């Protein structure tokens, strides 16, 4: 029987990383995600799996250590929270531009600026629209449970290596901090150097008899060649959009109204939907699991079925832009959100739904 453990989302990330066979973690303390680094230091995986764990001098250094580790074909990761993730954007752009696999965790807190240490989803734009400079995308996974925090480490690394692209787990402070039951993924050994060199023939491992040198770089001064690089990135993004869209649905079969929400907020919305259903109002939930690629086709399909859509986010209205684009203005799309680290309760969500769509009550 599987062992059920009780732990925080941040702790689950650390355990899952070791069990996946992660080769290196590089981080810097920032609330509300410091338990990732603390848990790894306490578990001392360098004594068991040989995983490297290092507290860097800054988030900037940490993401560049991830860049260096990823350049050798190793499975490496970092974690931070909003202000720290802003500092990492340069490095993330380089990682994307050098076609390197890497895993990044953002346990979002309220901003802008130093903001608050309470939960937020205000980094949606930064996560899915680029964040750093240049035309690039990360695959963005949005966990809503501690179980998904644990599961998305393996999924994230697998996707990162499949597409040679950075993957971001975009969690909020609730999922990072709350304790919940979790079944940790099975432990597996780290890849051997031979396996890494077979899987990553591009990696800067040292030549080891290879006839040519490997260079990991994002620089190309010839515009004609740089445009070819850009076209190659876009082909990768198109392949990801075609194959990797993930979402969950609840009560959508007969839904007349739709709530779109991600992360922990989706769970609050599900409770609101159950209350609405108790009152005879047919509301459904679409929870994007990948925020990029975004479940455009599914929202397009549902927008032909429902009379109105409400997005619920811990921000001023960011994902709503993508929901409006995907639904092609067929039905009204409204936003309800709290900011500053405030988390709404199901009653507030229901009130917002009825305020925006009063006809739903009749």
């Amino acid at each position, binding site marked *: 029987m599987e062992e059920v453990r009780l732990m925080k989302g941040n702790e689950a990330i650390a355990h899952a990383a070791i069990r996946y066979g992660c*080769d*290196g973690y*590089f981080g810097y303390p920032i609330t509300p995600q410091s338990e990732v680094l603390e848990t790894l230091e306490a578990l001392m995986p360098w004594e068991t799996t040989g995983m*490297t764990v*290092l507290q*860097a*001098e*800054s988030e*900037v*250094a*940490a993401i*560049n*250590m*991830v*860049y*260096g*580790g990823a*350049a*050798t074909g*190793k499975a*490496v990761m970092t974690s931070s929270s909003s202000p720290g993730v802003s500092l990492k954007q*340069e*490095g993330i752009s*380089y990682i994307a531009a*050098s076609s390197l696999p890497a895993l990044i965790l953002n346990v979002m807190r309220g901003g802008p600026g130093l903001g608050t240490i309470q939960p937020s989803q205000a980094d949606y734009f930064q996560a899915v629209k680029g964040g750093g400079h240049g035309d690039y995308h990360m695959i963005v996974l949005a966990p809503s449970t501690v179980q998904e925090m644990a599961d998305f480490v393996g999924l994230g690394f697998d996707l990162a290596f499949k597409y040679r692209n950075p993957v971001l787990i975009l969690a909020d402070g609730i999922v990072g901090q709350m304790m919940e039951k979790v079944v940790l993924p099975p432990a597996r050994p780290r890849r051997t150097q031979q396996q890494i060199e077979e899987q990553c023939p591009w990696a*800067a*491992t*040292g*030549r*080891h*008899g290879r006839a040519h*040198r*490997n*260079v*990991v*770089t*994002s*620089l190309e001064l010839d515009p004609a060649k740089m445009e070819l690089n850009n076209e190659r990135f876009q082909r990768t993004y198109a392949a990801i959009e075609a194959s990797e869209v993930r979402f969950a649905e609840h009560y959508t079969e007969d839904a007349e109204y739709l709530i779109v929400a991600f992360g922990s907020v989706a769970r609050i919305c599900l409770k609101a939907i159950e209350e609405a259903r108790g009152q005879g109002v047919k509301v459904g939930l679409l929870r994007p699991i990948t925020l990029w690629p975004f479940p455009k086709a599914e929202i397009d399909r549902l927008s032909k079925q429902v009379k109105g859509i409400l997005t619920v986010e811990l921000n001023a209205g960011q994902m709503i832009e993508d929901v409006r684009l995907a639904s092609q203005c067929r039905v009204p799309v409204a936003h309800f959100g709290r900011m500053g680290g405030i988390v709404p309760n199901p009653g507030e969500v229901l009130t917002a739904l009825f305020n925006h769509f009063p006809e739903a009550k009749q």
Partner: protein
Amino acid sequence: MKPEEIIDPANRVYARPRLLTEVNTHYCPGCSHGVVHRIIAELLDEMGLEDRAVGVAPVGCAVFAYNYIDVDWVEAAHGRAPAVATALSRLSPENLVFTYQGDGDLAAIGTAETIHAANRGENIAIIFINNAIYGMTGGQMAPTTLIGQRTATTPYGRRVDLNGHPLNITNLLAQLPGTCYVTRQSVHTAPAVRKAKNAIKKAFENAMAKKGTSVVEIVSTCNSGWKMTPAQANEWMATHMTEHYPLGDLKNE
């Protein structure tokens, strides 16, 4: 002897090192980078490190170092080479990991990464080209620009009240317990080149022996940025640069 016999490769006493690629560099004639590249290529061959060396290139004139020295390379973001090298070294401890950085990269934008990698005693060799100017971007002030030195952003000469002091970061690095070997060399004469080669060799040996961080500063010239001929630049470097950046070992443990 006929000219054909003289240019016969078999008769050469001085040839392109095996690990220096057969392409023209983008460096200006008279620039120190070419000499230091050659030293590194010779050493990697002589020390049998071709298969185990991974270089980290900076942002600056040496950004294309990976086009010239025929080993694996990772091109770092501006100033981040020591952080990149930290991961390369920790995840592949069997490799020789070295960074090749200019003064802007190492002593301005990358100061934090440089000091902390050295303070952790990462088993890497840092080759630091100090030519007191930003060459790649067109000759702006560097952290190591001398007082009174004219650059594109100090057109009337560097002033302490406006621009602060030249940063002698190598002296700073020598204070850190994580460094095992810190030296300042030059490549403006044949004897200097030989000394610089010995210094870089020692730095590579230290990295392979896991003794900590080695720093080899090469006080260099940038005749284009300095608006001088190569010969004038060598003379100016020997006269003025070495006054603020004296040559020799600062630490050798």
